[in-house]
């Protein structure tokens, strides 16, 4: 591992160590933050007991569906907008301003429209993540070097072949960064939604534990969510680097 990675690990470990000492010595009261080691054991206990299973299933299945829908839908819409410039010009300001809107404010409406359960969360997370994919798709298709398109002309490729063999591979890196964002935003959308207005799911459990002053449970849950999301994002990131290494980008 590189020197940089070691430094990073050292800093993170150091921070955790400091926190551990601060908590154990009473400098930081357990009503505020509990020691990291206790967080880990709380998390382990929760997972082992299995009573978190339905919430985990609920949350992660919602996230999974949102990821798939936002990537597929986002790519399709981005592709369509690229194909029809007038449509794209009309939506450009909307796309640019999309992430300025506080989406969570519309959560309660989704519940009222779609009822309780995971559907409004999936809709919300999908809508939240989709635009990132749309923007990335447009950026990727825009930035194809003109010389590659001329090469397609020289080889007399059909429109389909040009799309499949040149445009899509050339847009690849941008598409992948869109996928990364869609994954991250799907997690954020579902969990934030559960936190604010839900009766099930890991996000809800965190809020519930907070309300009940159950710090160990709360921190165990928070650690679990952060660990899973970070691990997942890191996997996606590592895969992207693997792909990029071949292209030397």
């Amino acid at each position: 591992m590189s020197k940089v990675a070691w430094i990073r690990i050292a800093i993170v470990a150091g921070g955790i160590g400091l926190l551990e000492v601060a908590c154990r010595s009473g400098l930081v009261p357990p009503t505020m933050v509990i020691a990291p080691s206790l967080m880990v054991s709380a998390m382990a206990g929760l997972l082992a007991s299995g009573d978190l299973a339905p919430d985990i299933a609920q949350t992660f299945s919602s996230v999974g569906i949102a990821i798939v829908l936002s990537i597929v839908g986002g790519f399709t819409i981005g592709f369509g907008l690229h194909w029809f410039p007038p449509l794209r010009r009309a939506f450009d300001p909307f796309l640019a301003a999309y992430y300025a809107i506080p989406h969570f404010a519309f959560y309660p409406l989704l519940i009222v429209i779609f009822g309780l359960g995971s559907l409004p969360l999936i809709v919300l997370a999908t809508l939240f993540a989709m635009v990132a994919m749309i923007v990335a798709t447009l950026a990727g298709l825009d930035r194809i070097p003109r010389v590659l398109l001329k090469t397609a002309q020289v080889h007399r490729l059909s429109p389909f072949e040009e799309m499949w063999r040149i445009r899509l591979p050339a847009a690849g890196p941008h598409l992948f960064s869109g996928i990364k964002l869609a994954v991250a935003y799907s997690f954020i959308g579902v969990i934030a939604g559960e936190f604010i207005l839900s009766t099930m799911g890991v996000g809800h459990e965190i809020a519930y534990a907070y309300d009940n002053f159950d710090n160990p449970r709360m921190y165990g849950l928070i650690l679990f969510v952060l660990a899973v999301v970070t691990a997942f994002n890191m996997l996606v990131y590592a895969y992207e680097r693997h792909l990029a290494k071949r292209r030397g980008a």
Partner: protein
Amino acid sequence: MAEPAVSLVRSAPMDQPVHARLADVTRVYPARAGQPAVHALGPLSMELRSGEFFSVVGPSGCGKSTLLDVLAGLALPSEGAVEFEGKPVQGMVPDGVGVVFQEDASFPWLTVEDNVAFGLRRSGVAAGETRRRVDFAVDFMGLRDFRRAYPSQLSGGMRQRVCIARTLVLQPRLILLDEPFGALDQQTRLLMGDELLRLWRETSATVLLITHALDEANLLSDRIGVMSARPGRFIDIVETGWPHDRDSRLAERADFGAVTSRLWSLLRTESMRAMGQGARAK
């Protein structure tokens, strides 16, 4: 592949049949939001003779690349006619025409091998024949040790060789090159020039090269078209009369410099005009 021709006699391009022709071609880029129309090229006429090596030189922005685009069928002329092998060229690249661009057109997501094989695989050539031709082109362009490398791992010169190899496998009868060595240093350019001549002789193709380097045009060509500043037209076409089996050592000849001087004396005023034209033409 035809027998390489060795000739000590002055080659006579004007005796050959016409391979491609431009007749009173103009190209005007229409006005767009906030920008006036740009009369980029013409009216310009030229005849490319079969098997000749023709260079086009001219000041920046004079429309050299536009000329190539129109000739290749990559762009439609606003006026005039384009013909290749007797048939009109209408906005589509005809079979038998190969193009090497100024920018790196190698596909970063494919290996050198797959890049070179790309065109063959798309045109349904049998796998055995494809492999044969790819092997030949890869060897010919000195890429054998890099077959499985990705373009990003190669230098600029190597990448251009990949693009040339990719064009070569399709056995084009007319090869168009748009400042292919623009990004390379002088020594590499001279070597690549020799390779281009070798290619030309081995394939007996007609070659049109666009370059801004006068001595390069001088060295490589049978004829050189000198273009004016925008809108580009031919001021003159200079015949070099060099032997067919030439290479970079041609520059040692006493009469070599005279041709370069002739080109510059034609171009000097045009270049100053082009500099005054200022903003980027594209």
